């Protein structure tokens, strides 16, 4: 009954922008995150940690007010028994927060069976995936920025010293580094949420990777370095080669990158993050703080490394998602 028609000519390109509908997805996902119970619990946890550690640090620092030009930054790094410093907590709270934001991003849509309905709207998959990632990243940034502002506020009140411009600038770079660090874990949880149909599996896999880097990677890096660059006779070159390899290996872990980078940002007196030979220290003024641009130069590879890893993970998730069958 249908008359034979000619095969119509094929359009050469996919029509429209891949980002059509992106902001609708971002707005909806952010609203979901900000009203979810899960986020409320984690926000409270981080808030309590922040208030506790910063209060303890401020108590400690009151004694040294006036001797330290970077008092505000000390708030983040000063530990007082039995509480560790705030940055110590951040090292594992940020991954936890990021994983909680993204582990059910895509498989949640499949399990709620909303995926086919959403993708039947005039948007591409690109917009859905990037929208989900951006919404999580913005939520993470929002939470961290709020806490950062809160800490600075408490600090000024408790210490009674207004921060200098450089302190604020260093503090902001620290915030940016923390968000970039969170980005990696977000992208990782997103990849697992695409790869695994069960949200619980995705969450456990993300936490397993995080534990691996937090606890085991430094041990493995050390063992690998010892195996690959053994110290046979005890020559200084051998020791040096082994230590350098260990450093390179340990920096594959985002945790190591992050902790080194914030160390350089929050402690201006840190002059180098690698090995320093006595010969290289000739003429150095010990204890003198580095200017901000020099500290930035020091952490630049770390920051780009964190961002690059995030982009790579997102790209992996993108490829996986594009190849996925939509039928539930």
């Amino acid at each position, binding site marked *: 009954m*249908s008359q034979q028609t000619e095969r119509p000519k094929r359009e050469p390109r996919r029509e429209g922008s891949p980002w059509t509908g992106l902001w609708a997805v971002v707005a909806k996902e952010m609203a979901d995150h900000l009203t979810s119970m899960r986020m409320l619990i984690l926000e409270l946890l981080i808030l309590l940690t922040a208030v506790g550690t910063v209060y303890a640090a401020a108590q400690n620092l009151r004694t040294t007010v006036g001797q330290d030009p970077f008092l505000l930054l000390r708030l983040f790094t000063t530990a007082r028994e039995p509480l560790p410093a705030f940055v110590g907590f951040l090292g594992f709270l940020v991954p936890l927060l990021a994983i909680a934001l993204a582990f059910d991003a895509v498989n949640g849509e499949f399990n709620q069976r909303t995926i086919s*309905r959403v993708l039947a709207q005039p948007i591409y998959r690109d917009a859905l995936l990037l929208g989900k990632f951006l919404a999580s990243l913005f939520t993470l940034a929002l939470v961290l920025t709020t806490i950062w502002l809160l800490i600075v506020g408490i600090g000024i009140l408790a210490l009674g010293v207004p921060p200098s411009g450089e302190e604020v600038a260093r503090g902001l770079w620290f915030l940016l580094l923390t968000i970039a660090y969170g980005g990696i874990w977000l992208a990782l949880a997103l990849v697992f949420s695409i790869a695994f149909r069960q949200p619980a599996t995705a969450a456990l896999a993300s936490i397993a990777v995080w534990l691996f880097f937090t606890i085991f990677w430094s041990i493995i890096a050390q063992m690998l370095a010892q195996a690959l660059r053994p110290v046979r006779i005890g020559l200084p070159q051998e020791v040096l080669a082994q230590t350098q390899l260990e450093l390179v290996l340990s920096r594959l872990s985002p945790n190591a990158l992050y902790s080194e980078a914030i160390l350089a940002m929050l402690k201006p007196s840190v002059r180098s993050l690698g090995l320093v030979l006595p010969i290289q220290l000739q003429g150095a003024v010990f204890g003198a703080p580095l200017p901000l641009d020099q500290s930035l130069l020091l952490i630049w590879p770390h920051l780009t490394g964190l961002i690059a890893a995030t982009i790579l993970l997102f790209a992996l998730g993108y490829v996986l998602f594009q190849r996925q069958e939509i039928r539930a």
Partner: protein
Amino acid sequence: MNDVVLESQGLSKHYDGFVAVDDLDLAVRRGEVFGLLGPNGAGKTTTILMLLGLTEPTGGWVRVLGFDPARQSLSVKARVGYLPEQLGFYEGLTARENLVYTAKLNGLPRDEAQTRIDAALAQIGLSDAADQRVATFSRGMRQRLGVADVLVKQPQLIIMDEPTQGLDPAAAREFLKIVHRLKAQGITVLLCSHLLHQVQAVCDRVGLFHQGRMVLEGTVTELARQVLGSGYRIHLEVEGPDALEESLSRLDGVLNVTRSDSNLYELEAEKDLRPEAARAVVEAGGRLLLLAVEAPSLDEVYTRYFQQEEVGHVATD
């Protein structure tokens, strides 16, 4: 050309080694309700995914409203509503919030979206439940909300995949009424189902899908003629002379006459022959007690087709 909203030729989809859809030629005209039938796994859902550009065809071509779904999926999806078999909503959001998200994804301005959402909810009778969470909805309400969700974009074509599955009879009837109303509004509907009497109740034409191929296509009467050899079945109860078979079978269009009881006859006919049969009985001196016609049932067509199919396979083996 303009009255064909959906057309495909040689459309195929292969998954490594497995043929889901094989050389499908399909044409759906504007304003009709077309039923796509077939057993589970016949390739219905795969076909729908290709129509929406959610899966790329392996071969052949398809045009939906004149657009190529693989390349112009945004244009297709802006004009075609899809009610999936596995219909899900965001449980934590209200019915209205779910529809607002759909409206935003369709790029509708806020005021326009509100008007359309109110109209859609009113049309399917969910205005009162609009601000309840979807988690509290029954299956029937969800299915109707699905229709509202589709109506928000004011589609020209709606594709429904097993829409009445799992509904209780009342909800299913209600749903079929909605389909009738959509047709009255001039919306073309492609309905995939294996619930035959429901398909028969709403569809203008049907296509029977089997192992990735469209094996039969046409109105139910056409299919009945093709498969059963006859479209209508006329039951007669006659008191009086014996041996009415002969005079009945002489009628034009009668294919077969069977006498099941002493005075019960059954005619298989190409058309509705009730008046002619009545006259034949009276002229032969019989007293007509009952005269009933059974329109061809899709159920019968379907069962018979697959029986023949099996027999055919056995015969060729």
